[in-house]
């Protein structure tokens, strides 16, 4: 029987716009118009790892996300890399979720779809950047999980060899499947989708679930209400300083810099 791999992706506002981000003074929320959504970049590396494992073992790859209905676009993009099927959970009831509620909702959808041997996600999203969801998904699924993964290779039917990057070195582990892995961007180079795969992406099965389709969802753990963390104020930090220009010849500038360095 072939390995079943699930990949969780997140649809995020394009990071190219983050330096010009605005907060609506009335609603105190981020102004999202003019910010098109893309697949979170670390998640593309999760898809790439799944594709490599598919090529090596004939694994079946399913993509999961929870998003507004437009999230379908990112799922189709994900299918264009060569994945087999995609699933979207989209419902106001699950909206406004923090990482605990998001991971719970994802878990419920994944369990509904079937049993998976391996679940892969990007280590962190570019917008919220908490890096919580993969670990918390592992907890809800009852699977062991590992973050900061920079290498992963199946060494037997039920064991994956994984390297994890720490501040002071690299740990190497054998992990028994099933498990959840959160991968960093340096784990692999993401391929370009082939023309063939792009053409068939739209024809691959894409299932959209509402909350009603998942009666297993416990209302206590979903959406804004089910989120233990609540969002308060939003501020745009101010970092500017009065800057003095150092001018002159390269030698004069070098001298001035060294003087500042000496002063500390």
């Amino acid at each position, binding site marked *: 029987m072939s390995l079943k791999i699930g990949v969780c992706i997140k649809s995020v506002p394009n990071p190219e716009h983050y330096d010009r981000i605005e907060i609506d003074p009335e609603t105190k929320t981020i102004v999202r118009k003019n910010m098109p959504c893309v697949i979170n970049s670390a998640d593309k590396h999760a898809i790439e790892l799944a594709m490599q494992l598919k090529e090596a073992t004939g694994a079946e790859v399913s993509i999961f996300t929870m998003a507004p209905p437009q999230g379908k676009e990112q799922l189709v993009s994900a299918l264009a890399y060569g994945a087999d099927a995609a699933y979207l959970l989209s419902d106001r009831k699950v909206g406004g979720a923090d990482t605990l509620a998001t991971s719970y909702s994802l878990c419920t959808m994944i369990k509904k779809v079937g049993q998976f041997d391996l679940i892969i996600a990007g280590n962190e999203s570019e917008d919220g950047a908490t890096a919580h969801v993969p670990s918390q998904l592992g907890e809800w699924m009852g699977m062991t999980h590992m973050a900061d993964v920079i290498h992963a290779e199946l060494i037997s039917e039920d064991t994956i060899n994984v390297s994890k990057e720490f501040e002071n070195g690299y740990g190497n582990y054998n992990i028994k499947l099933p498990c959840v892995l959160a991968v960093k961007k340096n784990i692999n180079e993401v391929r370009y989708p082939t023309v063939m795969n792009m053409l068939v992406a739209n024809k691959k099965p894409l299932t959209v679930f509402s909350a009603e389709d998942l009666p297993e969802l416990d209302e206590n753990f979903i959406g804004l209400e089910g989120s233990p963390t609540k969002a308060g104020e939003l501020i745009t930090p101010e970092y500017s300083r009065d800057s003095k*220009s150092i001018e002159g010849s390269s030698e004069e500038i070098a001298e001035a810099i060294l003087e500042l360095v000496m002063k500390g």
Partner: protein
Amino acid sequence: MKDNREIWIFAEFKDGRITKGFEELLCKSRNLFERGATVVSAVVLGNSTEDQIAQVKEYGVDKIYAVEHTKLIDYNCDYYKVAMEHLIRKHNPDIMLFGATVIGAELAPSVAARLRTGLAAHCVDITAEEEEVSFWVPAFGGNVIGEILIPDHTPQMASVKPGILGVSEYVKSECIEIFKEEVPELDHTESAVELIGFTPKDNSGVSLEDAKIVVCAGRGVTSEETWKKLNEFATEIHASVGYTRSLIDRGFVEDETNMIGTSGKSITPDVYIGIGISGATHHVCGMNKSKTIISINKDSKAKLFGISDYKVVAQSEDILTALLEKIQ
């Protein structure tokens, strides 16, 4: 006003030494509430914890909770989370803090999920007004700081980026109670994770977080020659070298070890010299607390100039050459 509130800090050790972020968390915890008594405690996990307890004691916490177990000899999330969950369920701290390190950033969300409580990630600050605690977290590459509240769940959990809070004065407690805790669940917990080996990184020289002077390279460092000169210059002035992601993209460095910014390290040196750095916010977030900021860039519109104390509009390589000539 609550009078017996308790804040816990996960004490993390690297190569046998307590990590730098511990004192920052302790200092923040001690000074968080203006009024009422706050008990600040440390959690120590390991195979044998005597030496770790001794290190924590020097910082002056009120209580230490220690779990000794052979399964805790090396970090393994499957065992560490069980020990943490047990301690928290037994003693009910009000606030539980972790450093947002590789270990903390994995352990904290696991424990929070098991306790079904809220966790604020990679905080840049924690503040309190009366009893209401606000956790301030960066989002959208640091362009926005959001306030996270955890009103109805305990413990309120947070991970804090090391190097960001800094250490100011705090009262060291002399009254230390040490609780050696048994966690029977550990005996019958099995992990699917088997450690095969650990390869240390080559961390020669002063670590970036401890450096008094940091020279940082950005997109404007385009040639191997300039990169080499920048490193020579740093060595000459006893500075550590940091960089932005573009240096990884160019292949000048291998990994993110000394990358500065929201997804890398936070630094607070006396002098920061940015060379060829545009100043995208995700980088600025990791260095804006430097005491003196000097930036060199040929692009007079570079954003980093606006947050610098001193700016030099020039070719980086020319200035580096002149600097090396002056020193050597």
